[in-house]
Each structure stands twice: as structure tokens, then as C-alpha cells.
């Protein structure tokens, strides 16, 4: 049975503070066309983004903003792939995945133009984001619930994985509501670093 001192020394070597806030962005009045994290330090093992967001898309109740990453600048080439399973706003269960594209789509948000004060939420993990021997892997759980409005389109849910086919370390992340075309006020994106 360990004595008290031994227990204390065991705790002192544990990685307290291994999950740290890097930066948080909240959109102000008037909205914004994109949210950009730049100069992300390579001092963590993984990154995590937690968001609550809405766009001003006017012709549909949910929106699917894009996510792109890069090293120093955003990669806009056809170097991304995404697989996605979920329940769409029309109620259908769906699974899809495409060939490489120039952006990743897996983030559901609400459309504030049709449903006021309602936001989508999501958690996105970027694994080994600074490892220069690997392509970068993403996993995400996102969705929004619209209380059955409008006209029985109750919300959307997505469980996704994605890939950035580059061995470069990720230093930049961009979120863009390409259809929206704006993230609306009070949308918030928080970037965390996880030490390993």
C-alpha cells in the first residue's frame, strides 16, 4: 500500500493541463464571411475545435460550411476527401463520400435566416496535426436541431471523417459558409490544443 508521499509524487508527474485553450472567436454584429486561425503552434499532439454556429443561408434550414487547412496559407487545391454518415434535414439517413475536392464538408449549422436564435454545434478533432510523416486525419460529430421547423425539416446530424492529403504541419484553419454566405452574430469557434 503506497504511503502518502508516494501517492503525491505519482500525481506530480501526471500531465495536468494537457487540454488547453488556444484561441476562441465569436462573431460580432454584421456577421463574417470566414473564420481563420493562423500561426497555430506545433507544440501540441492534437487539435480540437468546438463550435456553435449559424449562417444566413436564406433558401434552406441548415447550411454546410466548408473547412480548409494549410501550412502558412490555406490549401485550395483538390487535396481533401470526406466520408460522412448522418441524418439530413429531409429525414433521410445517408452515407456518402467523394473523390478528392478542394474543401471538406461535414459541418452542419443552422440557418438563422429561417430559424432565429438556433445554432448548430460540432466537435472536430485533428489528429497528429503537426506530424510531417502523415496525411492529416479529421473526425467530427456535428448537427443542429430545429424543433421540426420549417415544414417538418427537423435538423441534421453528421458523423464524419476526412483527410488532408499533405504531410505538411497544419498552421492555418479556415471555416467558410460558402452558401450562407455569412456566419451570423454569436457564432463561436474555439480552438484547443491537446498534449500527448
Amino acid at each position, binding site marked *: 500500500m503506497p504511503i502518502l508521499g508516494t501517492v503525491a509524487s505519482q500525481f506530480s508527474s501526471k500531465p495536468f493541463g494537457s487540454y488547453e485553450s*488556444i*484561441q476562441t*472567436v465569436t*462573431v*460580432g454584429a*454584421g*456577421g*463574417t*464571411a*470566414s*473564420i*481563420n*486561425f*493562423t*500561426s*497555430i*503552434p506545433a507544440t501540441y499532439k492534437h487539435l480540437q475545435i468546438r463550435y456553435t454556429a449559424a449562417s444566413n443561408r436564406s433558401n434552406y434550414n441548415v447550411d*454546410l460550411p*466548408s473547412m480548409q487547412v494549410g501550412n502558412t496559407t490555406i490549401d*485550395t487545391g483538390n487535396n481533401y476527401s470526406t466520408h460522412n454518415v448522418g441524418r439530413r434535414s429531409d429525414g433521410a439517413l445517408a452515407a*456518402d463520400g*467523394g473523390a478528392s*475536392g*478542394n*474543401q471538406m*464538408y461535414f459541418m452542419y449549422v443552422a440557418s438563422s435566416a429561417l430559424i432565429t436564435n438556433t445554432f448548430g454545434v460540432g466537435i472536430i478533432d485533428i489528429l497528429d496535426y503537426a506530424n510531417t510523416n502523415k496525411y492529416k486525419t479529421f473526425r467530427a460529430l456535428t448537427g443542429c436541431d430545429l424543433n421540426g421547423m420549417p415544414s417538418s425539416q427537423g435538423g441534421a446530424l453528421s458523423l464524419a471523417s476526412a483527410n488532408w492529403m499533405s504531410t505538411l504541419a497544419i498552421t492555418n484553419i479556415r471555416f*467558410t459558409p*460558402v*452558401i450562407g*454566405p*455569412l456566419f451570423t452574430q454569436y457564432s463561436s469557434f474555439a*480552438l484547443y490544443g491537446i498534449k500527448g
Partner: protein
Amino acid sequence: MSEAPTKIVVDCSTGETQIIPLTAEEITEREAMAVAYAAEKAAEAEAKAAADALKASARAKLIAGTPLTEAEAAVLVI
């Protein structure tokens, strides 16, 4: 003339946050992204419609007792 949309840029090394108007090139890029998105979704819808039509055809032939094509059989057999 309406104001240019803005982007939020956060420098994670300094914590500095800037709100910057999009350049003409960035607006053009956004428009291209929207076109790419629409094309991708249209292709998905087209593929789904084709698969649905194939399933409907296969079901109708099964009910009628007529031979299925290989493609029709493939959509019914896992």
C-alpha cells in the same frame, strides 16, 4: 455599392484578432467554392436519382417476372 464582406483572422501566436474586408480575389475564390459545392451536390443528387431509378426498374421486373439486367440485379443483392 454594398460593403465588402469581412473575414475574422486570429493569429494564434500573438492572440491578435483582426476583421479584414475580403479582397476581390477572395470574393472570386468564394464564388468558385460555391460553384464547386453546387456541382458536387448536383452530382450526388444525379447519382442517387440514377440508383433509385435502377431499383425501381429492378422491382418492377421482379414483380412482372421478367429478366433483370446485371446492374438491376446488383442493386438488389448485397
